[in-house]
């Protein structure tokens, strides 16, 4: 090399610019390399080139669903049905939760985990039941989600960050039976009194507020998603395309209700617990590194069924229906009961209404 080497005038700046753009692209490609490293194999390559859900042609969608079913069969040894049923016309889902009835038994949490194929370890739970004292009212600074945790005495466990992760919660046989057949929990008052630690709900002077996705009419999470991986369906359900989400977690920062959950590790789902009735936008098994959330059990509700949490609730605190149908339960609640929504001032306009049935 020589500094005296005079370049020809012909080497114009355009060429130089072209080169620099190429090198920029090269760097961009370099950035993508670790990503490609993250998964090897044809499945990932197919995933990599998959289109956005809303842009798939019917044929592509069909083959995609078939592919997902094949993958599920391979992974869980169980034949599953992955549907992509669209919203019914003239339906806008609304949810009611009777705060004067909820006893905080967390059956809904675990029914949801089971129905929606949530990861068992690390445990992801779409519903979070918060305990408040009646004296203080709904004050999130005083909320306790860990009431009745083992070894916690009355309140939250004082665990250290340094301790190894606690084993995921184990359900007793009786609890598993209740989840399998919700009717088996009745009559409610016959429940055995002796089992487990002494903590029973409702605890005196406390009330409970289960919180899951509020399916906002004006969802902040959808607004911030940089890649349109999450959107609001015509029936009001906010859904995520797990094959499009880049895992930036901006939506989690934006959600005022803590409703979105991230797959920090590869989700663990025992084959025997897989719910084979799946929806592409709902409870199909998720991937590591994507965000997931409650979809009002889209795989059930789009077929006219109640969500799993409504079916399991032992005290009937949970109500579900079509807001556009004047005869629906949810409309009755809105018209006759005292209704409360969380964080009203944020103008997210949730379609999840807490009410006082008394």
């Amino acid at each position, binding site marked *: 090399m020589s500094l005296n080497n005079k370049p020809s005038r012909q080497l114009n700046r355009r060429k130089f610019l072209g080169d620099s753009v190429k090198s920029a692209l090269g760097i961009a490609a370099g950035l993508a390399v670790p990503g490609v490293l993250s998964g090897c194999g044809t499945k990932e390559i197919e995933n990599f080139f998959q289109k956005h859900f809303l842009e798939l042609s019917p044929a592509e969608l069909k083959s995609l669903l078939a592919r997902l079913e094949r993958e599920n069969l391979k992974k869980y040894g169980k034949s599953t049905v992955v549907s992509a049923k669209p919203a019914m016309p003239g339906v806008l889902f609304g949810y009611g939760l009777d705060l004067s009835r909820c006893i905080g038994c967390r059956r809904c949490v675990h029914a949801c985990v089971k129905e929606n194929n949530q990861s068992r370890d690390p445990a992801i739970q779409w519903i979070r039941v918060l305990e408040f004292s009646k004296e203080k009212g709904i004050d999130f600074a005083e909320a306790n989600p860990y009431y009745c945790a083992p070894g916690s005495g009355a309140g939250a466990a004082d665990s250290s960050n340094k301790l190894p992760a606690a084993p995921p919660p184990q359900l007793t046989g009786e609890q598993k039976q209740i989840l399998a057949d919700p009717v088996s929990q009745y009559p409610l*008052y016959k429940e055995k009194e002796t089992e487990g630690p002494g903590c029973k709900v409702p605890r005196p002077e406390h009330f409970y507020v289960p919180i899951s996705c509020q399916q906002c009419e004006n969802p902040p999470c959808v607004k911030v998603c940089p890649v349109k991986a999450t959107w609001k369906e015509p029936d009001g359900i906010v859904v995520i395309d797990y094959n499009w989400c880049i895992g930036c977690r901006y939506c989690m920062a934006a959600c005022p209700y803590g409703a979105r959950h991230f797959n920090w590790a590869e989700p663990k789902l025992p084959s025997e617990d897989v719910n084979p009735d799946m929806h592409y936008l709902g409870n199909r098994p998720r991937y590591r590194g994507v965000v997931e959330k409650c979809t009002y059990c889209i795989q059930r509700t789009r077929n006219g069924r109640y969500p799993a949490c409504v079916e399991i609730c032992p005290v009937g605190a949970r109500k579900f229906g079509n807001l556009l149908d004047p005869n629906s339960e949810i409309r009755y609640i809105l018209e006759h009961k005292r209704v409360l929504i969380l964080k009203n001032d944020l103008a997210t306009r949730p379609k999840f209404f807490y009410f006082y049935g008394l």
Partner: protein
Amino acid sequence: MNQHIYSAVTAIGLFLLLTNVKPAWAESLESASNSPPVSDGIQTPAPPLSPDYFPCTTCHEKGKTNNQRRQLKTDHTDIVFEHDEKNRWCLDCHAPLDRDKLHLASGELIEFSQSYRLCGQCHGPTYRDWKVGVHGKRTGMWNGQKNYFLCVHCHDPHSPAIKPIQPFPAPDKPTGKPFLLGAKNK
């Protein structure tokens, strides 16, 4: 004689109570009739009857009754009666002459599977809410066939307040992997 007078007084009292209550919620019932019609063929799971006892007529002979208000000593001692116990007793709800049935204030005999009508006599607004599906639980289809649960599936008719139950497991506390700045979570 005394017990006859007693039950007559209770019946009249109950009747008065009902007639007083009625105007308030009768109107609401009408307005509620817009909602899906609730026929008496409401589908409910079988009422929670103790298989040890039912049918009651295995012990209680039809057509015979002891109208004496008393503390039960030999049978049904497991029943805790905390349901306006000062003003009512067993035979306000259970048909005296046919223990396989319940009876309304009007005297009409009803099956155990229709017990909601009995409860609705006093708990008018709750009955109204239950019929439109806002009180109590429903399963099935949100836009179609719904299964109702009876009042007695959740509420012990003899002691109706909801009893505390065992909750399902609490969520995990998040545990990080802090390095150097190990911190205790409160």
